[in-house]
């Protein structure tokens, strides 16, 4: 039996094609994935991401606990509402999950973790808390839903629907959030566009969804979410990295803070395990197919592998993220084996698209 978000009926009534996504019954599209993709780049799209899990980390030990559990340093979060992207690593330096950490005040942080890994993440945090005897409460918030509204007109549409929340929303700088009553409004996302992620009480989610669609936001499925994040050069857990992959080999070195003398989980392993690969983008340069995950790449310095690939609606070409031999550079020409045919591709530095523009 698949898990359902509070918006499940809403998706079905709108004619969504539903798929099993990590044990959740989720919409993959509502008709055309490509049109949904363009709606986000040009206007605004709406995503149900309630399968992701909000977890509150509270108590006097919250900050020190997260400084041990997370590879980036939450001590950087000084202004209330500030968000930080990072990974939780295992002792071997592999990625347990990637997550966002929000800081609201001393003793109150909030993390948002992936759907497929949520149970594992929460169990791991519990083990770590016990091991460290950390004075923290770890509270999975199954009572909350997450709706993302993304695109150049997202904030304007939100303001027309929620005038009382407009002032608080308009003050938000990118990568900041505000607690507004029992809502959290965050200027974050997974599309490469401006927009908001709204964390709302589950029972309110269908009303919020409906109101935002009436304001003009187009319902978008997980299909468009994947093409949008790939164009934006953002990693997907389980595809671009997992427990066997070091963040240094997944383009996530910028989310690992080695500057302070801070003993986070996985640090010792990372020190023993230098970077082994370049994590870069590929653009397919000749017709013949579509780049997908797990295709072999023949690069000037050896062999690599794609970790995610798709057809990019914005570029009108196929793109991929790939682990390539150390020393591979943007501009290099490579061959990708697409159904056993070697096709020419060019190495680029992600992102491919940002704020509607091809880079």
């Amino acid at each position, binding site marked *: 039996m698949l898990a359902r978000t509070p918006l499940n009926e809403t998706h079905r009534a709108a004619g969504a*094609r539903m798929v099993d996504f990590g044990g959740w019954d989720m919409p*993959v*599209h509502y008709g*055309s*994935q*490509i049109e949904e993709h363009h709606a986000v780049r040009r206007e605004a799209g709406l995503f149900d991401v309630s399968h992701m899990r909000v977890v509150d980390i509270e108590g006097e030990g919250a900050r020190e606990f997260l400084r041990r559990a997370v590879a980036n340093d939450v001590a950087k979060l000084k202004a209330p509402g500030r968000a930080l992207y990072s990974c939780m690593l295992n002792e071997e330096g592999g990625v347990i999950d990637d997550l966002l950490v929000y800081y609201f005040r001393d003793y109150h942080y909030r993390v948002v973790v992936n759907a497929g890994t949520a149970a594992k993440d929460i169990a791991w945090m519990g083990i770590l808390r016990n091991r460290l005897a950390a004075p923290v409460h770890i509270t999975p918030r199954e009572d909350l839903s997450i709706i993302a509204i993304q695109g150049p007109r997202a904030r304007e549409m939100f303001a027309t629907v929620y005038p009382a929340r407009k002032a608080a929303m308009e003050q938000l700088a990118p990568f900041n959030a505000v607690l507004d009553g029992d809502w959290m409004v965050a200027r974050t996302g997974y599309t490469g566009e401006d927009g908001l992620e709204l964390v709302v009480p589950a029972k309110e989610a269908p009303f919020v969804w409906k109101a935002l669609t009436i304001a003009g936001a187009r319902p978008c499925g997980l*299909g468009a979410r994947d*093409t949008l994040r790939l164009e934006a050069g953002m990693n997907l857990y389980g595809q671009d990295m997992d427990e066997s992959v070091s963040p240094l080999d997944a383009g996530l070195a910028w989310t690992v803070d080695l500057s302070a003398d801070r003993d986070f989980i996985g640090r010792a392993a990372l020190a023993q395990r230098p970077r082994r690969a370049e994590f870069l983008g590929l653009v397919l340069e000749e*017709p*013949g*197919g*579509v780049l*997908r995950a797990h295709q072999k790449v023949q690069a000037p310095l050896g062999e690599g592998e794609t970790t995610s690939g*798709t*057809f990019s*609606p914005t570029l009108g070409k*196929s793109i991929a993220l790939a682990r390539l031999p150390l020393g591979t550079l943007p501009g290099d020409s490579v061959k990708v084996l697409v*159904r056993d045919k070697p096709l020419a591709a060019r190495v680029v530095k992600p992102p491919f698209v940002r704020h509607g523009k091809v880079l």
Partner: protein
Amino acid sequence: MKLPQDLRYTASHEWARRESDGTLAVGITDHAQEQLGDIVFVEAPQAGRKVAAGEAVGVVESVKAASDIYAPVAGEVVATNAELGSAPEKVNEDAFAAWMYRIRPSDPAAWEKLLDAAAYEKAAADSQEH
């Protein structure tokens, strides 16, 4: 399910239309395009290629997946629809108009033995349950 009665079908979701010259135009069904989602690449077999019935002869790729296309009958490919190379979305727009290739069957009666609309509808419904 949208299914023209004058076509024949395969369990692997191809349709075949008999032309006046005895060749068969082949495409994928509306059900198949709907399952695949937005189609972004079509590779059909080239004219002159001899194919066996059920042989994988080309590929259709959507944003989400790649899927082989099969020859419904044995014969020789006589034409490829070049338009789909630059406009693969035509398959989504009208799957039964978007022929991919034409084949001259080695057995002129082979077309008759393919599934009719009712038999295909049943086969497609059965395969969806799995």
